[in-house]
């Protein structure tokens, strides 16, 4: 069976080619780009894709940090292009709870104030991407690896891969991409462990 575009439907039932499917952003990646005032690069990479672009919990995480005065989170909330967040249906809650365990949220950590939302944004995004055939962007090592295993090749990206895409699209030069990545690190934020070494032009070509 093929769709009208000649594209075979994926196992998740999404008939659109992967290249145009909605992309869900994790809070950590949004904050990476916001920290260096380059949220415009996300727009440049994915503005041709439809909403949704984040889930309700990811938006809530960003909003909570913004209330605490984290300036980069304020700029994310001001970015109207992100649009309305996707709220999981009640049928998704069980899968989200299990994904959280798979991401390392074990036990209820009674003394840990942050525990109630730990890995919830990533789990919610992966479940929504699985259910609707969307793509997912994260710089959390565990979420990236788990999502890649569940969603398959070509549907999970991290910051360096987005910068590489921006270079390929002509939105950035290679030196600019290296500069953005290095400024993210200088801002005290971490790229995935794969990039703990010094980044070179080969990473962006």
């Amino acid at each position, binding site marked *: 069976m093929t769709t009208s575009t000649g594209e075979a439907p994926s196992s998740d039932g999404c008939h659109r080619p992967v290249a145009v499917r909605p992309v869900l952003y994790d809070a950590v990646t949004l904050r990476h780009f916001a920290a260096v005032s380059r949220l415009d690069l996300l727009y440049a990479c994915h503005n041709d894709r439809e909403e949704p672009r984040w889930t309700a919990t990811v938006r809530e995480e960003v909003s909570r940090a913004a209330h605490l005065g984290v300036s980069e989170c304020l700029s994310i909330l001001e970015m109207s292009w992100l649009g309305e967040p996707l709220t999981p249906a009640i049928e998704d809650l*069980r899968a989200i709870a299990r994904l959280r365990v798979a991401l390392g949220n074990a036990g209820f950590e009674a003394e840990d104030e942050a525990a*109630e939302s730990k890995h919830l944004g990533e789990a919610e995004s992966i479940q929504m991407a699985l259910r609707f055939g969307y793509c997912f962007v994260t710089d959390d090592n565990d979420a990236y690896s788990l999502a890649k295993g569940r969603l398959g090749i070509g549907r999970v990206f991290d910051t360096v891969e987005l910068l590489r895409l921006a270079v390929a699209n002509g939105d950035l030069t290679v030196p600019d991409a290296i500069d953005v990545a290095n400024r993210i690190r200088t801002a005290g934020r971490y790229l995935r462990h794969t990039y703990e070494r010094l980044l070179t032009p080969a990473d962006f070509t």
Partner: protein
Amino acid sequence: MEEHAAIGSRIRALREELGVQAQELGSRVGLDPSAISNIERGRRSVKSDELAAIAKALGVSPLAILEPESLVGRLPVAPRASSGTLLKGDVLSRLTGLAELHEVLAEGGLKAHEQAKVQRVDTEHWFRTAPKLAAGVVSQLERDVPGDDRFVALVRAIEEQFFIDVLVEERDTDDVLGASITDSEFSLIFVNANQQVTRALFTLGHELGHTLAKDGRNSIVVDDDLTARSDSERFANAFAAALLLPEEEIRAQIPTGVPDALTLCRLLDHWGTSFETLVYRLHNLRMINAEGRDRLRSLGLRGLVAQINDQQLTARLMARVGSRPARHTPSLIAARAYAGYRQGAISARPLAGLFGIDPHIVSATMDLDAEMALGEAIDPGDFGSYSNDDLYGGSPVE
């Protein structure tokens, strides 16, 4: 709406079981009482972040709300320790986390190995059944070694021969010596490493008694002391004593009359138990009377070794007084978690959490990304053909 109602009624049931008022729950999670009421009545949908907050506020896993039929759902939300104290803290969270991990691995096809079959026991008649079960276990044990290594050897034997996971780690926030998950789907023994190794040995035997007897009606047993307050506790104590100090061999080592100090010290050295355990056992075997028991108790270990003239034996026994058991990762679930990580069922964090190491070490050592780059896409519906022959036996970072 049916699903909303089911979740709502489960939240209400758990809240009431824990004695939490709706208003109090609402204030803990930042919702007004009417929102809690509507959620509980199935009139309002619960969002994923609200569900997570409600679960945390109640001190339960979200899976306990969403899947009451699962192992996590079957675990009691507020188990009482053997002294009657309500257990809410660190140890319960750790056990819940392991049960959650078991659920996720089992869903991915990585089920727990079925616990070895033992004779059915009646804990009500503990005086007769506990020694009988212990004798059966002793006859099956291939790795029981005397002396200082006995605790470690017994832990390994329980895992390898009875397929019961054993977790030994220090948990200071709860006053708990040991605990066990006694569910038929997943068995696990926890021994708190904050106790002397000789005492930990008895705790291990005691929890093994609970686990083999499957007498935790609510799938979980928690011991904050080992006082025999119920038949279940009496059974576990009698089982541990008979397991650790087998009658036939004890009688062979004390051929006649009341044992002298040197004989007692040699027994302690050989069997690795605490002085108290030995005294308890000798009295139960009627090898000493109540007067002899009380005299030994008042003498204590230090008084006993003061009566012998063997410096090496004295040094070995006194060294055990300050010795704590080494941390032990439950190897059966660790093997399943390792397979689960390789197959994409779980991320590095749960595996690292089992070993108490940094997740970066796991992912850097066994870089799943590298395999993915080779195009090995994993079908999410098939986490592979895990076989118990593939049990992983070591550390992922060795």
